[in-house]
């Protein structure tokens, strides 16, 4: 498993007496993207939180770039691995302006050029510079989500863990964000794990997709097979059918 940027083996997480992640394994090559879809409450966010070092209470083996992860992580780890939370409030401190939220990672990691980087980051996620000195609650839901994405990119991480990054965005901004993620992957060889309920979004960015149900990774499928309907597990088949039914281009 050393050729991978991210390797997760037999990951288990429990809360109290509740097993929430029940032995999940997957790996992502450097510069690759792994998608995660599946039942609500099946443990997707919990997996990302364990990889990103926010929850130290897990068992199993996890490696980033061939190095085993310990429960506690140092500052260098947090520069390399960033997470965008499902709930944008989770990434943003309510008492901090957007300017502060974006400059903080630069200050922590001693990166200069703050002014230019902030303006570029805002433009990359299609936010007007007027939001810069506002507080998170003074933004719309989608604007907050875009700030969270911009913040995660500030310190130029190598690994980005994205939890429903575009669910609050209109499809035009979603397209811009997805194109930005693809472009960054090409130019900086970023590695992504992306959780989303939107199969079309996941398949667009991720060549390999894991399907979760009840704490288990019940299927790992290529985007190509998912598109073509060559699914193995009933949950995958059902998710795909509902997605295709809604998407039917004759209808919309």
């Amino acid at each position, binding site marked *: 498993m050393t050729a991978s940027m991210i390797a997760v083996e037999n990951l288990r997480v429990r809360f109290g007496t509740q097993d929430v992640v029940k032995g999940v394994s997957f790996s992502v090559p450097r510069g690759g993207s792994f998608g995660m879809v599946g039942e609500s409450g099946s443990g997707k966010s919990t997996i990302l939180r364990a990889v990103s070092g926010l929850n130290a209470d897990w068992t199993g083996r996890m490696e980033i770039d061939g190095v085993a992860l310990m429960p506690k992580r140092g500052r260098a780890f947090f520069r390399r691995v960033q997470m965008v939370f499902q709930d944008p409030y989770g990434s943003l401190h309510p008492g901090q302006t957007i300017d502060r939220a974006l400059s903080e990672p630069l200050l922590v990691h001693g990166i200069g050029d703050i002014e230019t980087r902030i303006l570029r980051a805002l433009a990359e996620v299609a936010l007007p510079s007027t939001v810069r000195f506002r507080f998170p609650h*003074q933004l719309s839901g989608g604007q907050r989500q875009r700030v969270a994405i911009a913040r995660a990119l500030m310190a130029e991480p190598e690994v980005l863990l994205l939890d429903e990054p575009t*669910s609050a965005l*209109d*499809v035009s901004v979603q*397209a811009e964000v997805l194109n930005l993620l693809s472009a960054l992957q090409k130019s900086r060889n970023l590695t992504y794990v992306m959780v989303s309920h939107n199969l079309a979004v996941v398949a667009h960015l991720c060549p390999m997709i894991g399907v979760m149900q009840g704490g288990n990774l019940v299927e790992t499928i290529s985007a190509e097979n998912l598109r073509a309907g060559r699914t193995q597990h009933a949950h995958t088949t059902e998710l795909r059918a*509902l997605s295709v039914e809604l*998407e039917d*281009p004759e209808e919309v």
Partner: protein
Amino acid sequence: MLVRMDNLRVGFRTPQGVSEAVRGVSLTVGQEKLGIVGESGSGKSLTARSILRLLPGSATVTADKLEFDGIDVLSAREGALRRIRGKRAGLIMQDPKYSLNPVMTAGAQIAEAWRAHKGGSRRQATKAAIDLLAQVRIRDPARVAGLYPHELSGGMGQRVMIAMMLAPDPELLIADEPTSALDATVQADILRLIEDLVAKRGMGLMLISHDLPLVSHFCDRVLVMYAGRVVEEVKAADLHRAKHPYTRGLLECLPSLVKPKPQLSVLKRDPAWSAPQ
């Protein structure tokens, strides 16, 4: 008509003067399923919250008319509004986990909403809460009833909020991105539940969503918002035949599962779309 809104304007004072976020929105909601789609930041949530006068303190709001079931919302007293909010009209907010009370369990919050409307004992309310959680397809409703908001998954938080808003049998449900964190199977069930309430009890629904295929399938009529205004209204089933260049552009940005594109088209925003009228 449940809601009549004429020329709604919501602004915020800034050091550079007042900035208008909602610029003259007019709409009605009857016993129907009204969809609202549109640009992120175009004023959808503010428009929805205005109906219950739940705007931030720093907002200024005016309208030629803003009525809920004939009651003038802008001049109503707090007491009269409290009798509407959460009882006759429910609002499912966009960030459910942050709209829930962080120090109360999910079950207790739903039970409280149920009891405020229906009375009954604490025990009956607790049982009703667990039933409601089962109705919104929570797998293990008794366990989840005992969880605090930070212990809920994203989609569980949305469903707790939905259960809470449905508890008092509202006449109007305003749902701001209610299913964005739900997988397709649960989403389909929740929509069926809402559909049932609309069909059987004549509930009115205002559904705000970025999911164009969903809105097109589920709603009766759709308003498209851009830069604080409604730029287009279409029959939901005809959304794919929308005319406004913003709506057309949106449809072209949709990624597709069956017809992949290497690069997604993006929208060129024309300043004329947001010019003052």
